[in-house]
């Protein structure tokens, strides 16, 4: 009863707010400003955007990143362009990408390594169906499918080896069926039936995992059911008094943000994968958003979590902002990576949409100075919503994505800027690096904040380098996954990985890991020097998050994925040896499991195991991540 009344009152309020918004159209300053800054989010009309369909393959690539209509390609003139209409870059020509691509990787547009165009359905093993389970499910009225395309789509995340195999048309173990619960009670029914019939469940949110978390374990003999949460995508209520929203966990980032925006709010949680990743996925992997300096990471954002486990539903009894009731049970759920249950509903903090947003960038003569500046910004606790420091290689990478300049005047201006920085200020173009900034808040404060940060930067030899450079820096992180697909068309494979590390070790870790990658590639017979680049992507009081991109040209290698994995393994060893963590926000999955014990101690691992043992003795949630 209580929930009924609260939801009806919420709905009423929603209607009122919606009315306000509709009455005051485009001239509404706040929403326009915020909208403008989202270079990354689809441009399509917010109200008409459709949620994720059950048949994802209709709008998304089955063997690559993102929407089917958006991809990079080299056109007949050899110029790179980005297709589609969804992004800022869409339809634009990127004249310098080809030279950068060929120069960096020693790749050649003549040497193509195209992907298999369509799924070879005959390669998909027939499903191992648990008939009694299916019958009970049908009776419960839950949508399900064992169509091979649906199953293949949910058998992978976006690790290099997963995508590489798909492109070659190789398909391993895939889930035997897919179910689409539409609400919390559907999930309860599914889990109950799974326990009853001993079926293995693998929760599936946005499918953007990069830790082999979605891979079906080879040793699993039971029927594997992929539990796709995409249809649980409603905002159930918004509480303006407490600034919280109660949301179904299947909602994907962009839909959540857009729908909240319509009410004048946002969560501020913007992981780079937010176009596709889901709220439940964020909770299950301890996700981190670009603007965590203002809004916090997912663990700071959640107020209440509801999760269905084989033992029943776990949740707290109130919405108090903090409690001292023994170890926080949320922390059993956060980062559990689908091994304990399915997150179905989350109450999370919301904020009014900021009045004003501004990008910015600072050029530093070298990486050391840049890191010193970020450290100082963190020490003074004045980090903007986002501050990232790209190393020289990544700066050049970002530069290669500059769209064609429309006028001679603009190109003249660019030349002038370059002259000023390299010749007049004496920055070495092979050492300089750039920090990208994003400020958010009310206009006056943003401008004040901006000045403070630029003043600190100046002490470390930093020069303000304009909004444009800043914005392009953020764009890079959204298109990088699309770019990987382009690389894979031309014998270039790569991936990103991340870590967190105390401040005093940042420089040493970056240098050693980059060098280790270069050295390992050489030792393993990679013909051309790899791209090995990093950025400091988040700042904390006691350290920073570092993000690496690593890619190489694999022509001449018989088993490129194996080489790739060996190098990544070595890089991770190097990270751990240099005082870095196993993961900052990607999670462990199956990819990094081997280091879990070393990372959390034997006792720590035992604690996690005993929780699993209690919650899920039958190993219904059998994706075998983490432990």
């Amino acid at each position: 009863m209580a929930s009924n009344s609260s939801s009806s009152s919420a709905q009423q309020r929603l209607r009122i707010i919606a009315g306000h918004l509709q009455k005051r159209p485009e001239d509404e300053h706040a929403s326009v400003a915020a909208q403008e800054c989202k270079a990354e989010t689809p441009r399509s009309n917010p109200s008409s955007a459709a949620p994720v369909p059950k048949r994802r393959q209709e709008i998304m690539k089955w063997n690559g990143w993102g929407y089917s209509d958006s991809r990079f390609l080299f056109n007949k003139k050899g110029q790179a362009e980005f297709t589609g209409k969804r992004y800022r870059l869409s339809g634009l020509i990127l004249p310098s990408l080809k030279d950068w691509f060929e120069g960096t990787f020693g790749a050649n547009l003549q040497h193509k390594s195209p992907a298999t165009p369509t799924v070879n359905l005959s390669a998909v093993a027939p499903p191992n169906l648990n008939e009694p389970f299916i019958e009970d499910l049908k009776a419960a009225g839950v949508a399900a499918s064992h169509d091979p395309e649906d199953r293949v789509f949910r058998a992978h995340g976006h690790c290099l080896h997963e995508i590489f195999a798909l492109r070659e048309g190789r398909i391993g173990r895939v889930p035997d069926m897919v179910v689409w619960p539409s609400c919390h009670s559907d999930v309860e029914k599914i889990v109950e039936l799974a326990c009853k019939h001993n079926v293995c469940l693998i929760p599936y949110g946005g499918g953007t995992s990069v830790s082999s978390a979605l891979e079906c374990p080879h040793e699993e003999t039971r029927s594997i059911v992929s539990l796709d949460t995409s249809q649980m995508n409603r905002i159930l209520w918004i509480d303006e008094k407490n600034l919280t929203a109660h949301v179904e966990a299947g909602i994907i980032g962009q839909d959540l943000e857009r729908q909240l925006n319509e009410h004048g709010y946002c969560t501020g949680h913007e992981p780079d994968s937010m176009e596709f990743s889901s709220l439940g996925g964020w909770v299950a992997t301890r996700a981190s958003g670009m603007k965590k300096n203002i809004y916090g990471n997912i663990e700071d954002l959640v107020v209440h979590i509801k999760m269905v486990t084989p033992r029943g539903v776990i949740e707290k009894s109130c919405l108090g902002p903090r409690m001292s009731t023994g170890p926080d049970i949320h922390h059993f759920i956060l980062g559990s990576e689908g091994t304990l249950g399915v997150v179905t509903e989350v109450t999370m903090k919301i904020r009014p949409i900021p009045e004003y947003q501004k990008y910015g960038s600072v050029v530093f003569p070298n990486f050391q100075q840049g890191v010193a500046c970020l450290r100082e910004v963190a020490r003074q606790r004045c980090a903007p919503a986002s501050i990232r420091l790209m190393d020289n290689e990544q700066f050049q990478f970002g530069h290669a994505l500059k769209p064609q300049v429309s006028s001679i005047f603009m190109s003249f201006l660019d030349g002038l800027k370059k002259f000023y920085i390299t010749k007049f200020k004496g920055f070495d173009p092979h050492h300089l690096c750039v920090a990208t900034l994003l400020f958010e808040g009310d206009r006056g404060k943003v401008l004040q904040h901006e000045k403070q940060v630029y003043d600190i930067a100046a002490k470390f030899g930093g020069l303000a380098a304009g909004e444009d450079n800043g914005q392009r820096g953020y764009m890079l992180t959204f298109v990088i996954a699309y770019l990987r697909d382009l690389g894979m068309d031309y014998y270039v494979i790569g991936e990103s990985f991340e870590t967190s590390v105390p401040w005093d070790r940042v420089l040493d870790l970056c240098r050693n890991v980059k060098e280790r990658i270069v050295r390992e590639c050489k030792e393993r017979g990679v013909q051309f020097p790899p791209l090995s680049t990093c950025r400091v992507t988040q700042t904390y009081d006691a350290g920073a998050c570092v993000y690496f991109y690593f890619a190489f040209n694999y022509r001449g290698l018989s088993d490129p994925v194996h080489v790739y994995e060996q190098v990544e393994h070595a890089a991770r060893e190097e990270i751990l040896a240099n005082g870095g963590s196993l993961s900052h926000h990607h999670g462990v999955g199956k990819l990094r499991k081997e280091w879990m014990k070393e990372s959390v101690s034997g006792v720590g691992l035992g604690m996690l195991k005993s929780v699993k043992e209690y919650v899920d003795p039958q190993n219904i949630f059998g994706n075998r991540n983490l432990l």
Partner: protein
Amino acid sequence: MASRALYSPRHPVLKKRDDFEDVLEERRRSSDLRYALRCYTPTLYKGLVPCKVSMLKSIVLQSDHLQCVIKQVSSESGDSTECVAEEASLILDEMAHRMQLSTVRFFVFTLSKAFKRLFRSVCVNEEGIQRLQQAVQEHPVVLLPSHRSYMDFLMMSYLLYMFDLPLPVIAAGMDFMSMKFIGEMLRMSGAFFIRRSFGGDKLYWAVFSEYVKTMLRKGYAPIEFFLEGTRSRTCKSLTPKTGLLNIVMEPFFKGELFDVSLVPVSISYERVLEESLYARELLGVPKPKESTSGLLKARRVLSEDYGSMHVYFGHPVSVRSLAEGKIKRSQYNLLPRYIPQKPSVDTHEFLNDAAFRLVRIQEENMVLKPWVLIATLLLQNPDGMDLSSLTEQTDWLRHLALAFGAFLDWPDHEACSEVISCSLALHRRLLSVSAGHVQLSVTDAPQVETTPEEAVFQRAVVVLSCASYRNQILHVFLRPALLAVAMQSANSSRKDDIYNCFNFLRNMFSNEFILCPGDSVQDFEEACYLLMKRGVLQVLEHEIVMSASGQSTLAFLCSVLEPFLQGYQVVCRYLCEETNENLTEKEFIPAVRSFALKLILAGRLKCFHIHTVSASLDVLWAFEVLWLFN
């Protein structure tokens, strides 16, 4: 262990070595002055952070590590931090080098003159130089030369200048500093000075280690130091010290450097300048204090012929690959890196092992001259040998040594007798040759009547000088010799028994020779392999059988070790017969020495067994070890 393959992969015989080139040849043809003043543009480390000598000092004093220790020391001693910091600054002043190119040029000029006078040739492996040139650019480099003579580090710097390599900073003993003028000259050519012992002095250690690490981290210059810690008076490699090795490796362990290259350098002399000086020192004549006037007096060494000299730059050893799988670098994750941390047990073991291996590499690349073989034979035949039989046996020994992997510099196209007479001529001060009979002797006949003690002393000087040449080849014969002695004393042909005996001897001599700890199985197999290949032994599954033709080889090998066994025996006898309860280590050596003298005079011990002295401390140590093992 029997199941392990006999073929040892690091087999010395298979070692490929580079060719040498004489660097003095060029010097004899052109002007030394112009050479000293030539344009010097060394290849540089890619990560070099350029910094001046004065800046280096302030970086060290400001470092977190030193500041942390200063605070610690101040709170422990009650002195103010300013006071302790001042002390640190003084220590650094006393220690730091002040490298100046002009001083280096002066040295280059004078050394060119001196070297041309002293040596017939100075041979360097140029491939080694090229490898070093490569290594210097990639990672900070640590040069680890062997140490047989004062000449060593002068020669190193000279060669690096010659090949346009960055000049090293050299860890030198404080004793040099007392040489007023020369000490400062050395300082200006890159030497920095460390006290001989500063075990408990935290502050000193902190200044010293931070100084070395800072230079390494900045890529300031290659660091050069002697693993053996001091000059080997016996020409036998000394048990390496690990303190400095730990300091240069720590920046890698802690992730401050991607890698560090260690370059072992083997410097060998046909005739060591300090030859008889060392012998006297070993016999208890105190070492002349390093002083400038002493150096001037030593001018007479310039008038003699010291034959040729060989410098072999070994392959750079990467600390990273050395530590792979042995050092868990994440052990440093939980403590801020500037807080000094004692090396863990594992680390210590690793350092010790690495140090031994590096000294082994030095040994293996040490060039041996024909005289070394002759000296070995003459020491085994105290009554002298006929020239013809000496020639014959030297030739035999030469083949044996080569089969065991010795790096022998034997003139290719000369008759054996020619080579031998050449060697005898060079070392005539240790010999007497009459009517085709060669014997070790004191050539400058005593003018006045001498006491028997003095006669023994004179003779011992010659024997020890000669032994220092024999010692140079010991590492070649050591493992087979241990096996030979083990077979003799095991009284059994069972492989296990022989191995046990071998292992016992190996433990006993673990401080006498360079025997990598933990390598005993490998050493045993290597010895078996070498002797089997030579046709001396047959190694069966459970047994080792001597072949008929192997008798002479085994006898020779046993007598190689005999003096050492005798020496140890004398010390044992002394400990049993003579010691009183409160004997200090200081009194111990002279006491053993006079005990040995007594035995010799009484005819119970032969003079050529007088290794006692150098051995005596090692023996004590060996007993401790053996006692622990049993």
